[in-house]
């Protein structure tokens, strides 16, 4: 009797220990997030002023100046990489959702999944050899190509997933009215899934917006305003890196400010994307 009581108690003690260990793990995982966000907010807020958004960087040794060119450069890079990556990714995703069962679809799906795990720095080397070497110089285009490759799997897979969430009823209703398959897909399925696809795009932008490594030797850097997409451009992540490893106090201050801008952008995109999806799901 007391033996089985002991066993019972031991089993429950183990169970309680397990539950506690899992909670500790969650707490441990949250510490770095809270710390990073706290540091970024606390140190970055002081560096944010109008100059930060509109001015060019000052030469070494002078305080002040801003990151206007880097913000402009980041927007250019994101815009162009979206122009390349989103059409390809969305259409590939449509193919996966519309013609699923084939071996070819499995290969594409697998390639996209594998691609999302390829280090971004090797994507940079790829863009360097395909674009920079051909053009003979670093350029915003080269950086955009690298970012487009990085966003491609995210856009493809989210598009596929979200098209599959569209109720079959809608498609069947359209087909039942005698509409051809492509019309049903474009006018009914894609339209229904549009907010979801927008979500995928936002997540992709959030992902590439902070990418640094592939830009180091594609978009490179530029102390001035960008002349054109065939010229090197500055970007927020590269500027944060350059300033962070420099020995100057004022540059550190600006690096934190840039980090605050970047983190805010990324978090906003993530939260919006999340809310969009939730709204859709609960609305049904």
């Amino acid at each position, binding site marked *: 009797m007391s033996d089985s009581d002991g066993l019972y108690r031991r089993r*429950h003690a*183990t*169970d309680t220990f*397990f*539950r506690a*260990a*899992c909670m500790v*793990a969650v707490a*441990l*995982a949250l510490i*770095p*997030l809270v*710390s*990073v966000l706290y*540091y970024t907010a606390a140190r970055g807020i002081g560096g944010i002023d109008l100059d930060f958004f509109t001015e060019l960087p000052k030469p070494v040794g002078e305080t002040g100046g801003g990151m206007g060119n880097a913000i402009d450069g980041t927007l250019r890079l994101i815009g162009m990489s979206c122009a390349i990556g989103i*059409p*390809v990714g969305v*259409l590939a995703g*449509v*193919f*996966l959702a519309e013609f*699923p069962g084939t071996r*070819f*679809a499995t290969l594409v799906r697998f*390639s996209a*999944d*594998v*691609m999302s*795990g*390829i*280090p*971004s*720095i090797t*994507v940079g*080397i*790829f863009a360097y*050899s395909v674009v920079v070497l051909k053009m003979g110089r670093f350029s915003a285009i080269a950086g955009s190509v690298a970012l487009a*490759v990085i966003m491609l799997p995210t856009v493809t897979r989210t598009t596929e997933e979200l098209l599959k969430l569209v109720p*079959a009823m809608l498609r069947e209703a359209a087909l039942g009215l005698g509409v*051809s398959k*492509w*019309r049903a897909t*474009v006018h009914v399925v894609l339209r229904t899934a549009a907010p979801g696809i927008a979500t995928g795009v936002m997540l992709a932008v959030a992902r590439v917006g*902070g990418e640094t490594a592939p830009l180091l*030797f594609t978009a490179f850097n530029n102390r001035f305003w960008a002349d054109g997409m065939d010229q090197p451009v500055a970007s927020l*992540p590269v500027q944060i*890196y350059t300033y*962070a*490893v420099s020995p100057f106090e004022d540059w*550190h201050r600006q*690096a*934190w400010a840039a*980090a605050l801008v*970047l*983190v805010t952008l*990324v*978090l906003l995109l*993530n939260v919006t994307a*999340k809310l969009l999806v*939730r709204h859709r799901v609960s609305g049904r």
Partner: protein
Amino acid sequence: MAQTSQVSLIRAQPRLLRRLGREANPGDLIFRTLTGFFAVTVVLVVAAMAIQMTLGASLSLREFGLGFITSVDWDPVRESFGALPFIFGTVVSSLLALALAVPVALGVALYLTELCPLKLRQPLAFVIELLAAVPSVVYGLWGIFALAPFMRDHVEPLLKSTLGFLPFFSGPHQGYGMLTGGIILSIMILPTIASVTREVLKAIPDHFREAALALGATKWESLRDVVLPLARSGIVGAVILGLGRALGETMAVTMVIGNRAEISASLFAPSYTMASVIANEFTEATGDLYLSSLSEIGLLLFVVTLLLNIVARLLVWRVARPAEGAR
């Protein structure tokens, strides 16, 4: 007689209709071809990367052969290149990251799928995934100004005074080095491992859990004896995905690992990773052989992460297969 022909007509109909339908509507054909073309693009990009990286590295591959990965000599001036210190730095920092991240990530995934109150589940999962959303360079910045000083002033002295007799925790400590690099990596791969594990655990049907609980098992017993064995290959896949991410992670590690091409037993010592050396030296590489050697490091990284990802995806797909054609 009449009946059979009718049956065969009905049987033949869908195929006939499909064929007719395809030929009768050029729009559908164009639609299929167009989207198919972009789907091919995804596969082609992966193939093109493999080819380009190999081409870029060909000079160094021919010059050094296998010696490239066994030599510790990295001397741009004499044009002698060996990648062993970088391989060492990458492997050790990644394994360190796994050792730190895997238990925490499993705990998080188990908590989120099995223990967490339903209302808290979604928001908490979202917050954990934000860890993956923070850009690498921001982790690096935080690493330089928050983590490294903290390591130097608190963690490393403590390790040294308690475990200093081990070669891993000896020597001078400045906060920048293998240990700090491993810790920052572990933070960055944690959300990957946790979210894939969560996906895998969610794919295990509830009746397994319910059966175990109905037999009187505690929550922990139901997980240990029933759910986890079923999820094992998927969890291994998740860990391998995390490893792949750690191997290729660049900026944050570059900013805290010290960037010195040395092989040292001490985790306090500065080190250098494959991704870091590419990030630091690629734009300054003068000479074709130098550039090609850096490309070969990139190729190694590419091939290893590609293989790891293939293995990991297959393992994860075994448990949580993405629904194909399930509408």
